[in-house]
């Protein structure tokens, strides 16, 4: 597939604020088409839910087993989950992220959630197959090749088992988390997934609060990660769900909060509109705490480059990205990636901007 490039040749229209007019930014048919396509999903309002406090493996740096949430008691009654989903729908939630600790261990709860709320995603380690009737996107965590997975996750032949469970499953997206120590392994993993016809997207390890271990990124490892992401995107365009701008946003020396202003309740006191108003992060006891509410609780906000956070935080910053053609195209690529990763039935388009673009108000790195 060949990328279409923005070819604006008209003089920069003056909005009085030194920016392009929005109507001119979307004047080119392929940009307009993408804008019209992504804006159909602006109705998505997410919340996240820990499904169980059990897991079938134990990984170094796991977010779930940090902080207090791991001690919440489990509510295993499907009807209580059905009731929760109904009340969530009533308050405007249209999208659920089912995570923590390992949702595949409670398929009866996943089924009930899906019956009540048809759009969503499940974060899983992929070792136990989730029935096909549960039509959510399934995000399968990958932390390196099988040697690395065995070392840091204590599971043998992890990638092979994950592929056996989800080969040919349109729900599945493998999520490769870059740490400073597995950057080179991403090529091997992506090659295998490409051969098997699977899809992959990228995450960047973001330290839990208080974490001082070796997985915390440095500027050097972030630069290497960015380059590795680009190499894989170019080499496996049919397999990798990502864009240049995704790589910039998630490997910048500043975290997502510093770059874009995180709008999850934990960082955002406003309850008037957007995530600050609607987002909740439920624990396994079906309670939630506004002070802890974000997509990956117990992450150190200064180090947050999490793919789930970016999907909301970058996407929400439409206005500041509508400044010039390449910046807006980069934002569209980011949103297009987010939708392809998170929404069942949404297929990734060709990236509109295939060069590095800095986040508004910041340098490239």
């Amino acid at each position, binding site marked *: 597939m060949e990328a279409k490039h923005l070819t604006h040749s008209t003089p920069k229209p003056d909005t009085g604020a030194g920016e392009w007019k*929005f*109507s001119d930014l979307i004047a080119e048919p392929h940009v307009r088409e993408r804008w019209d396509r992504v*804006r159909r999903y602006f109705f998505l309002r997410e919340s996240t839910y820990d499904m169980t406090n059990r897991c079938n493996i134990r990984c170094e740096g796991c977010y779930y087993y940090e902080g207090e949430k791991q001690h919440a008691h489990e509510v295993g009654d499907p009807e209580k989950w059905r009731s929760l989903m109904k009340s969530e729908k009533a308050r405007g939630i249209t999208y659920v992220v089912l995570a923590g600790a390992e949702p595949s261990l409670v398929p009866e709860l996943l089924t009930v959630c899906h019956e009540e709320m048809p759009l969503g995603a499940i974060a899983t380690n992929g070792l136990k197959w989730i029935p096909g009737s549960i039509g959510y996107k399934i995000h399968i965590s990958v932390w390196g090749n099988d040697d690395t997975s065995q070392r840091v996750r204590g599971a043998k032949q992890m990638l092979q088992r994950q592929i056996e469970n989800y080969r040919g499953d349109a729900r599945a997206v493998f999520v490769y988390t870059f740490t400073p120590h597995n950057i080179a392994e991403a090529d091997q993993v992506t090659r295998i997934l490409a051969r098997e016809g699977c899809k992959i997207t990228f995450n960047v390890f973001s330290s839990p609060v208080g974490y001082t271990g070796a997985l915390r990124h440095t500027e050097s490892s972030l630069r290497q990660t960015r380059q590795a992401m680009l190499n894989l995107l170019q080499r496996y365009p049919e397999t990798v769900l990502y864009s240049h701008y995704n790589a910039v946003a998630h490997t910048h020396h500043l975290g997502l909060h510093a770059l874009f202003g995180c709008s999850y309740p934990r960082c955002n006191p406003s309850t008037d509109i957007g995530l600050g108003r609607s987002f909740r992060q439920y624990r396994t006891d079906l309670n939630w705490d506004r002070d802890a509410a974000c997509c990956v609780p117990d992450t150190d906000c200064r180090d947050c480059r999490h793919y789930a956070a970016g999907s909301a935080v970058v996407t929400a910053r439409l206005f500041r990205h509508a400044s010039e053609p390449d910046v807006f195209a980069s934002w569209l690529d980011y949103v297009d990636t987010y939708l392809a990763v998170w929404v069942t039935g949404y297929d990734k388009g060709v990236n509109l901007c295939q060069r590095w673009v800095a986040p508004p108000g910041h340098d490239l790195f």
Partner: protein
Amino acid sequence: MDVATELDKMMHRVAEIMINELKLEDVTPETFDPDIDLVDEVGIDSMDLATVALVLRDEYAVRIDEDDYPKLTTVRLISEYLLKKIEAKV
């Protein structure tokens, strides 16, 4: 110019843009209640407001700062905000 008239005109135009951009049904600029809560009662969210803000930026050459979204909860408040910004430019 009569301030009330200016505000009325702006509210009419903002309502028109809202209806067109957000595909709102069963309402016209004439029947759009300028004091209805856009978030609570119309169901508009931050992405919708950003879209409307971009169209308004094109038309009036003024920015609606992202930080100001939370307080712009009605057509009247948006219109007053815009008029203040326009007046500050003159």
